[in-house]
């Protein structure tokens, strides 16, 4: 499973409680689209730290890294080159 698929599956199962997967495009903005809300951001930070074994710096928690499946996957790959 690639990074995008892992992120999509996590959000579908734990945030959207969707019975049919992640129904948005990978570049859809989480916040603008109401896909996740601001309270879920901390949950996503914990998820990527635990799932991908990386340490998220405070300065990394910005929309450029955390506002879509595509942006988050790209961030994970930059932090964890073995996944690239």
């Amino acid at each position, binding site marked *: 499973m690639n990074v995008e698929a892992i992120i999509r599956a996590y959000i579908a199962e734990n945030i959207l409680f969707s019975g049919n997967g992640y129904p948005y495009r990978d570049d859809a903005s989480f916040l603008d689209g109401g896909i996740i809300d*601001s*309270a879920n951001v901390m949950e996503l930070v914990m998820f990527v730290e635990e799932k991908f074994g990386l340490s998220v710096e405070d300065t990394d928690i*910005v929309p450029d890294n955390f506002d879509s499946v595509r942006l988050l996957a790209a961030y994970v790959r930059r932090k964890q080159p073995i996944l690239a």
Partner: protein
Amino acid sequence: MNEALAPGTQATFGRHSLAIDAAREAERLTDELSRGVHQTLRRQGAVVGISGGIDSSVVLALCARALGPDRVVGVLLPERESSPESADLAHELAARYGVATVTEDITGILDGAGCYRRRDEAIRRLFPEFGAGWKAKIVLAGNLLEQAALNVFRLVVTDPQGCESGKRLPLPEFNQIVAASNFKQRARMSLLYYHAELRNYAVIGTANKNEHALGFFVKYGDGGVDIQLIAHLYKTQVYQLARYLDVPEEIQRRTPTTDTYPGGSTQEEFFYRVPFDILDTVWLGHERGLPAEEIGHALDLTPEQTQRIIADINSKQRATSYLRRSPIIVEAPNG
């Protein structure tokens, strides 16, 4: 749209657009209060929790006008971490409007519920040395005017020597600190209803628009009231009413705090991340459907800064909609 706004004579949008006709609004609110308390709720008076802050002061003043001071009780609800200044100001306020007060120290209730213990357990998981003489507060990292920031909370502790340090709050610790701290607002709500039921009075809420619509309140805590009187008014408009109602100067000058965390965080650093005059003006412009460029121009902000504030307003409203929901009532099956 804000119905309290004075008819504008100025052509352009700006901070002045938040101006209200305070006399007319005070009269309207006293009518609403009188009708709501006596006719709709069939109560004989009003109970208001007073903290020495601007919002509860305005609500107390309006209640005294609407119902008469002898049908209003101001309840002070301090606990061991409250600022002593709050009680002094609340007494001064009640004396100004001729309203009787009751003081209920909720420290014992909070101790019994484990409020402090549960909260401090979570703090010590991040700062094991946290203990007597230390202070702690939660803040939202980042100023919206400086950077695009997501809503990520930090725990900031101060040791007995005054040395401050902070860490990002992981979700389990954040949830535990908030859940434990919310005992404070819920204990206060219980005691307000005790004093209301004792007298057949209603409980009047003190949340302004910023608090109510952005979710800066505790469900069934300070959100547990019979009438929300000023939830349509921006914070800056509450100050306008305070001036009109002659709320004591010291209360008008006081910096709004959460009055929840022992480190004494301001509302701006805890939650809003921009000064109220900027937040309120941007929000009003957004509600009027003005483009970000026009709103920003009026405040010397870039369109990007304005857009970040609008995005934060929208995000907080969405994230906290659960707080404003009534219970879901499941209906009986058909047939």
